[in-house]
């Protein structure tokens, strides 16, 4: 059983968990405590409740109390304390200094992608740079905490060990009706896509209007399927703020720009070009000779395509390498740890992520994003969408579909919004 008041937990500034035991139903103590919380300007969420069966059995309720400030929360806790509601956690988190570089102390707290707080000197501090599968480090002055990847640990860093003094706020469905509610997180090839695409277009427009940042994570199928033009249009219209991809998307995009083919296939005719299989290598070579993608655009070597539009429209891009890459293009970061580090830096202000036709990069970026960033994953292969959805966030929506018709419809919806 769970009763939500209007305000979701993730917007409250101050939160504390209290428990109330005894005959709290018969005596109206529970309703009284809840009424008090509300009348004092707070809100609450019943996290757990167990009601006694026999008349002499006590009941138990675990209640999360939320308020907009520490001061108000303290006043609420003081008043409900008189009625027997007591905070459950009085413990600070346990800190252990790292005894070596690039590894956590044993028993380290392993993070989730959900909003997390740690208790330091009796106060709850929000963990920043929230990311799954990291540790949590506390600054030497003990006033801040952040997620820290294993490889970034330096000897002496203070790491949280165990679960005491740590609390996690699971991302929950918000009360607003939007795509994420409509779709849920289940993946199906048989859901009506039109509505979903319209909702995604709406989300892109809202993000742009609200000054949020949209990240596109794309795979080369965007180019192979002839969809590069749609992405170019979205970049020009200001719907994409950041692009993460690998060597392949950039290479085939540039191949298409220079030779009119993708993987040697004519984009206009669908037929294989003579010696077309060499085109992508020649494209990479030409960009390397020009000193990189940006430089190639400057010099007029590259005059169209996704990468061209990124440079022209100052859309930041990051190309992460992999073991099978040809070339690669000069901008490709071949050290995966360095690529991860740079991705972490750049996703901090991302509010919406569109992941299209890439299992590798979608899952890599999905691992880095906090749970509250909305994610749409589009792939022809259900397993990519399912893997990403298994991150366990309500905010991830999957669409199993071919990329080209998806992007074509998306651009049409965006144009409809612009014209409306």
């Amino acid at each position, binding site marked *: 059983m769970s009763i939500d008041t209007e305000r979701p937990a993730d917007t409250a500034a101050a939160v504390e968990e209290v428990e109330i*035991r*005894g*005959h*709290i139903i*018969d*005596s*109206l*103590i529970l*309703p*009284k405590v809840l009424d008090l919380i509300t009348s004092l300007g707070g809100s609450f969420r019943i996290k757990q409740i167990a009601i006694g069966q*026999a*008349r*002499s059995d*006590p009941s138990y309720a675990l209640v999360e109390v939320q308020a907009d400030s520490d001061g108000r929360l303290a006043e609420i806790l003081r008043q409900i*304390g*008189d*009625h*027997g509601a*007591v905070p459950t956690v009085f413990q600070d988190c346990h800190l252990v200094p790292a005894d070596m570089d690039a590894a956590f102390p044993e028993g380290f707290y392993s993070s989730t992608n959900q909003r997390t707080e740690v208790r330091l000197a009796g106060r709850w501090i929000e963990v920043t740079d929230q990311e799954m599968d990291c540790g949590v480090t506390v600054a030497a002055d003990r006033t801040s905490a952040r997620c820290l990847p294993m490889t970034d640990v330096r000897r002496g860093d203070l790491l949280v060990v165990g679960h005491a003094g740590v609390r996690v706020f699971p991302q929950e469905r918000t009360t607003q009706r939007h795509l994420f509610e409509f779709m849920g997180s289940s993946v199906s090839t048989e859901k009506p896509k039109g509505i979903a695409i319209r909702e995604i277009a709406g989300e892109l427009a809202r993000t742009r209007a609200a000054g949020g940042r949209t990240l596109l994570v794309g795979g080369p199928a965007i180019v192979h399927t002839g969809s590069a033009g749609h992405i170019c249009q979205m970049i020009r219209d200001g719907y994409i703020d950041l692009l993460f991809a690998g060597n392949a998307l950039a290479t085939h995009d540039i191949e298409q720009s220079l030779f009119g083919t993708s993987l040697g296939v004519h984009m206009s005719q669908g037929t294989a070009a003579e010696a077309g299989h060499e085109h992508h290598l020649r494209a990479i070579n030409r960009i390397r000779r020009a000193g990189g993608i940006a430089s190639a655009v400057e010099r007029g070597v590259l005059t169209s395509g996704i990468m061209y539009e990124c440079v022209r429209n100052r859309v930041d891009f990051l190309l992460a390498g992999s073991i099978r890459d040809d070339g690669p293009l000069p901008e490709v970061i071949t050290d995966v740890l360095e690529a991860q580090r740079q991705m972490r830096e750049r996703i901090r202000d991302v509010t919406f992520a569109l992941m299209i036709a890439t299992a590798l990069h979608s899952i890599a970026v999905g691992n880095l994003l906090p749970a509250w960033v909305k994610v749409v994953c589009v792939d022809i292969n259900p397993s990519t969408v399912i893997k990403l959805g298994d991150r366990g966030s309500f905010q991830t929506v999957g669409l199993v579909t071919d990329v080209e018709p998806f992007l074509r419809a998306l651009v049409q919806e965006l144009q409809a919004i612009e014209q409306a």
Partner: protein
Amino acid sequence: MTQPHILMCPPDFYGIEYEINAWMHRERPSDRAVAREQWLALQSLLIEAGARVSTMAPVAGLPDLVFTANAALIYRDRAILAHFRHPERQGEEALDEQWLAAGGFRVEQPPEGCFFEGAGDALFCGDTLFAGYRLRSDARGHQQIGARLGRRVIPLELVDPYYYHLDTCFCPLAPGQAIYYPAAFDQYAEAVLKELVPELIEVSRNEAQRFACNAVVVGRAVVTNTGCPELHRALAARGFQPRETPLDEFVKSGGSAKCLTLRLDGEDAASWRGEPAGVDAA
């Protein structure tokens, strides 16, 4: 059924030596001789009603030791000791413990970190323990006592400083039947009492001020301070035998008949009274 057994403490050192409730004013002292007379009259009435009265020795410097109701909560052979909110009365705790232990009770400490003022704030009506909180005892402590005893505990918030203990505004007569003064409770507590006690006899403001609710029940006899005629009529109409005796010297301290007594064998209204030991609520 065993003979009703009541603990009292003679008022040899009784007086208004400090002010820890709305009734007490040092400039309105009590007359020790009159107090003694009133206390003896109450004792006689109780004996007449069929009770056996035991006494504990009074101690100089502990004027409120006369109010034995606050010594402990009695449940069968167990006595859960008080821990008073005001330091002025905390000196009584060791003496209460001593007497009850010598009297054959299994003495237990009150819940840690909680104030708990004994039978003054914890009264059985039927199989349920009604417990006053906020002004003297803590709600959390009551819940812990309920868990200890395996009984339902209903904490009731007291809101009027003149009725700072539950026994000043609520008096169980029999299972399902009690006297109460509604204005002493917050709205939740009042609703709960109406729900859980089928027959509530409401006391007027005037009679509440005469401590009508601070009554001692011994079988069908109900002993109160003087000046509670409406209540006495209501009790007589229900087959009780109301008795009155002047207790004004104790009212000056915020106490009356009930406060001056601790029922050691279980109140008449407690359903567990007379049950063979070992029979507990299912």
